[in-house]
């Protein structure tokens, strides 16, 4: 009797596993296809339905990496890192500070300011393009990464602030009080006491902000003029004309390389990610 039940349980598990596996494969398939398309000729891509290429010719990777010859993808990778890394670090710092302020302190205009901050979340970004562009022009920030760094440093990401406020509200205030009794100032309370508890939320900020900045096309397009400063998102479309025949294998090869860092980062941080999202909605 017992063995039958165990057997049933095992079967159920195998079934569940297969189901999840099938779903997973469906989700990953486009990426796998992209990898193999890097080895295909245009004709194969247009006409073939098979996944595997006729031959594994690395020319797509080599030629794609060289790009137009003036700059290669090593430059574009470095540019992307220079753009993304400080942006993410500054976003984490600034949104934590602002969120701490809103979550733990009562000050005059607290509610109005919070509403104001939240309302900026509703402003469609296309409305902001021209005014922002004019502002950065007057600050001489065009054709540099300052528009990305400065907005990150000044807490211009209400989405992350809101997420962290919610997370902080879930942390019992007793923690802060205990720290205060022990002589901790408000800043040290944040860094030493709340910081470690906040970690999952900070991780999800890191993941989101890295992916969003890494893949951002519109903002670099508008703010960056020099090809020498192009990040990957612009470099990938460098050779895409209106309708002319692009070498898709090169584009697929470079697109594949450009997502590797994101995929690796996501897998390294995913356990925090789920925690960060799942717990920020709870109230303690």
């Amino acid at each position, binding site marked *: 009797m017992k063995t039958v039940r165990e057997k049933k349980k095992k079967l159920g598990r195998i079934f569940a596993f297969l189901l999840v596996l099938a779903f997973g494969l469906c989700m990953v398939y486009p990426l796998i296809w992209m990898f193999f398309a890097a080895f295909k000729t245009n004709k194969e891509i247009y006409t073939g339905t098979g996944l595997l290429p006729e031959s594994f010719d690395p020319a797509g990777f080599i030629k794609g990496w060289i790009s137009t010859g003036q700059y290669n993808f090593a430059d574009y990778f470095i540019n992307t890192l220079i753009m993304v890394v400080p942006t993410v670090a500054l976003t984490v710092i600034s949104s934590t500070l602002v969120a701490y302020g809103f979550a733990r302190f009562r000050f005059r205009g607290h509610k109005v300011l919070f509403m104001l901050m939240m309302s900026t979340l509703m402003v469609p970004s296309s409305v902001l393009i021209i005014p922002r*562009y004019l502002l950065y022009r007057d600050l001489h920030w065009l054709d540099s990464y300052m528009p990305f760094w400065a907005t990150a440093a000044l807490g211009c990401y209400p989405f992350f602030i809101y997420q962290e406020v919610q997370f902080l509200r879930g942390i019992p205030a007793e923690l802060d009080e205990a720290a205060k009794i022990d002589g901790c100032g408000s800043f040290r309370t944040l860094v030493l006491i709340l910081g470690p508890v906040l970690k999952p939320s900070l991780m999800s900020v890191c993941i989101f902000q890295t992916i969003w900045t890494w893949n951002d096309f519109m903002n670099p397009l508008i703010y960056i003029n020099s090809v020498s400063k192009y990040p990957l998102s612009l470099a990938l479309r460098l050779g895409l004309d*209106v309708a002319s025949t692009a070498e898709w294998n090169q584009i697929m090869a470079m697109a594949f390389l450009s997502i590797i860092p994101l995929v690796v980062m996501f897998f390294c941080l995913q356990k925090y990610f789920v925690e960060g999202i799942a717990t920020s909605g709870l109230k303690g």
Partner: protein
Amino acid sequence: MNGRRLTALGMAALLAGMTVFAAGCEKGSGSEAERAELKESSNELVKSSGETEAADAEGQDDITLRFMWWGSDARHEATLAVIEQYEQLHPNVKIEAEYGGYDGYFEKLTTQVSGGTAADIVQFDASMTRDLMAMGEVFADLNDYSAQLDTSDFDQNFLKSFSYYDGRMVGLPTGVNAGIWLTDTSVLEAAGIKLEDIRTWDDFISAGETIHSKNEEQYLFNIDITTLGKEGVYALMAQITGKELIDQDTNKLNFAEEDLKKVFTVINDFYDKNVAEPAADSAPYDTQVNTNPKWISHDLGCTYTATSNVTGNYYDFQDSAAAMDIPQFADAKESGILFRPAQLIGVAANCRYPEEAARFLDYFFNSDEAAAVLKDCRSIPATANGRKICEDNGYLDPVLAEAVEKAQESATANQNLSVPAEIIEILQDATEKIAYKQGSIDEITEEAMGLMEEALERIG
């Protein structure tokens, strides 16, 4: 107390390090890079202000010009090579290339124009001239720099039709872009049809019926709804009315409902009589008809596109390729064939060294060396000399050259360059409805007429 503070500091540093490390980066390198970048940009500022001082002081000067264009890798490489040639001939001139793909190019250009930060030399599309110039005096009048820039080698009628806005020469055509009815004669011949026999739309439609009846897999016309609803309607309508779609002065439609019905009837026949592949089957290849597997396997007879689109491996039937004459109505007022600049290149009105920019354009358009490098990367050159160099060296696809010649003979200046996007969308929607049989021709025509009149009134 001191000890505790130290530990606290240490922990804070550790935490900061941890957070940043977890972000997949090292803070040190990030901020160093940041500093290096800032330093670099401040150096640049110093450099450029130094440049202007030198310029003011001596008149013989280091000049930096920004040149922005979009295109494919081949175009980027050729243009960069020409820039290099020019810089070697003029060591005091530095040309900064700002190139990219087509996606977002006009969003970027209009943002820059409204911020007054557009590049000195700008490639743009002829259909954008009106919109760009409506934002102010965006481009300099190239006639002012005729001492530096010789435009005599261009077809003067072509310049008159497309280079001028409000009496100012705002840009020079990079190349000639013509409509081409690229035909695989072997598909036609297999069904016993001769290319010369297709003269009218009736001939075209009956040829399509014959091809499909002889081989179920095959169709005559490889076309997508986006092109058919725009360039297709332009051509058909021009044949009926001999005018632009919309009157530029009155902003009213230049055709009557029965004219539109006539156009839509032809389009309906394409789908109804199996002249074109069923819309549902060809939909994935919209605007990319050359990627249709049936085109690659030589089961489609011809396509209507612009010569500038036919690059690289657009088609592979070189031996049986021909440029068909555009089919016409028996009483057509004109051919309606597409004939316009591939792109235009202009000099920004706020460029600080317009003479130098004009001198570069002179080299770009008129020198043999540049023409030999640029080849047909911006379609078939618009200058007589450029075209000759390409022809002599065999850089031009003969079918494309033939199509350009045909278009040049019969095309008029009515090229519908500034039809509002809303009108195009209404026409394309109507075409889609016809292709998918979502109503009778009368209903669809009436609805489209109403929508267009309403839209024009609104845009006013």
